[in-house]
């Protein structure tokens, strides 16, 4: 009896929390599968028959496809750049000896907490002087920069524990430092590289502020910006908006589903230092 009460007093708060977390997601997905009439009739009920009209209309009529593509291009390229630049720098910080090494690494942590909005005006001026506003390049450069402190921090802490003897052996075999990084260190660093890439991808895919400011032409917008800006146009057709939101959420949820370990580990990284 006592055990049963103890068990219930543990399950009830957890169940309630799970419910509160899931209801908004249920609302989004369920209503994306309804007709507009069915949504107005009852926003909480399961659809009587599934309707994919909202999805086809969102993709065909509202150019969600183009927005999705823009998001994908921007996210993938900035993640690739940040991982490459980050790995090179992190390797130097972990395994090479040079002046300013400690100072460079120590700057990474404070850079991670700089509010992105604070530097937006000067960044905008710089990009417009370079003629890059409304070009995806501007956002790719800024995203790469914002990802680098975290990426360098994470990878450097991983590379530090790589055995020096192996690097010495590679050097004796005539490997250049770069070859040693590419063929000796990186192959065994996949978990760390994947962690950095996944965390950064989720950041880029979800980002609003920078994309909103730098990409003002319709053709260059990302999916998250497009949905935010066009929201009022959807107001008469909520299922279509919910379909758009579900499409925007799907990649991130899939990553969470299949790469949960990496994503969570990455997001928690730095919490114990």
């Amino acid at each position: 009896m006592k055990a049963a009460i103890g068990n219930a007093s543990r399950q009830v708060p957890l169940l309630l929390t799970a419910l509160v977390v899931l209801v908004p997601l249920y609302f989004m997905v369920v209503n994306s599968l309804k007709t507009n009439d069915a949504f107005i009739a009852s926003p909480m009920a399961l659809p009587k028959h599934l309707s994919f009209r909202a999805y086809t209309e969102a993709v065909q009529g509202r150019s969600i496809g183009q927005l999705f593509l823009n998001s994908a291009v921007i996210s993938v390229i900035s993640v690739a750049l940040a991982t490459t630049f980050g790995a090179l720098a992190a390797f130097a910080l972990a395994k090479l000896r040079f002046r300013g090494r400690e100072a460079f690494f120590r700057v990474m942590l404070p850079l991670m907490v700089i509010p992105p909005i604070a530097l937006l005006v000067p960044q905008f001026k710089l990009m417009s002087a370079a003629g890059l506003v409304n070009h995806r390049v501007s956002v790719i450069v800024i995203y790469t920069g914002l990802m680098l402190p975290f990426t360098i921090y994470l990878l450097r802490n991983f590379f530090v524990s790589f055995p020096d003897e192996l690097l010495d052996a590679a050097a004796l075999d005539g490997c250049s430092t770069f070859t040693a990084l590419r063929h000796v260190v990186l192959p065994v660093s996949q978990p760390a590289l994947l962690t950095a890439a996944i965390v950064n991808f989720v950041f880029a895919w979800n980002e609003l502020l920078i994309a909103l400011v730098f990409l003002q032409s319709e053709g260059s917008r990302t999916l998250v910006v497009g949905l935010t800006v066009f929201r009022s146009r959807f107001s008469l057709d909520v299922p279509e908006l919910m379909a758009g939101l579900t499409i925007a959420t799907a990649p991130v949820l899939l990553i969470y589903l299949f790469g949960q370990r990496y994503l969570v580990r990455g997001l928690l990284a730095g919490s114990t230092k």
Partner: protein
Amino acid sequence: MPTVKRSTDRGRRRTLTPYFFLAPAAVTLLVVFAYPLVQLLLQSITSPGILGQSEHGLQNFRSVLGDPLLHRAMANNARLFLAVPVMTAFAVLLAALLHERVAGWRFYRSIVFVPYVLAIPVVGIVFSYILQLHGLLNQFLGMLHLSGLAKDWLGDSSLAIWSIWLVIVWQQLGFGVVLFLARLSSLDPALIEAAMVDRADWWRRFRHIVVPHLAPVIEFFVTLSLINMLSWVFNYVYVMTNGGPVNSTYVTELVIYQDAFRNGLPNLAAAVSVLLLVFATVLLSVQAVVRRRIERMEA
């Protein structure tokens, strides 16, 4: 701790190699952080004077500090600070429950973290449908015969900031839970068992074993959350209320955004940005002090 020179450092000839490795990242960081930071500081002390000449001084700071809208915005950031203790307490409790390996704990852990990986604009749009006058929440209250509690959650100027407050807690709670749970995995089970033998009840075990073990990560989570409430809440506000109704949900970031990109006052925006950076730095320094104290307690 003094850094110990490790004898295992690559002891090669001094070459330029390290700098080649560093260059791509360093150049990007210069473009994205260093140059804008210098420009920001310069712009914050520059104001357009008469006859097209610019003047230097603290003029911008004087005018933004006297701006009632900024006062209101900062007061709202302070209100959001109040979410931090609530969120932390909830997260610690949930983590402690999950740590006892209750049935389905893995499932709960996965679910509770989901909001944290969603895009804030997506969350904001979904919640604006849930919280509107004829939205889901009020319908639900009606079903419970509590229609009297139904409110225009985002349309009432005395409520809107608190509704945003709740949405932020909804999204960020899971990060705390997973963070604390990860830390608890390093808690020695023998300690709990010894406490059980001594017949310490759940609350006493929680207070005297679980919470002290979590202290360093609680400190990290609180600092991170405070910084978030100060300088990473733009997306929530922009999507859900855009500062309204009647400017009641302005936050500091929105003042910067409006001044810079809507009102054509980039110099004032720069001054507010500098203030924001100063506040963030103060928070970080406070954390450093607290950390030293915790470390001394542990020693």
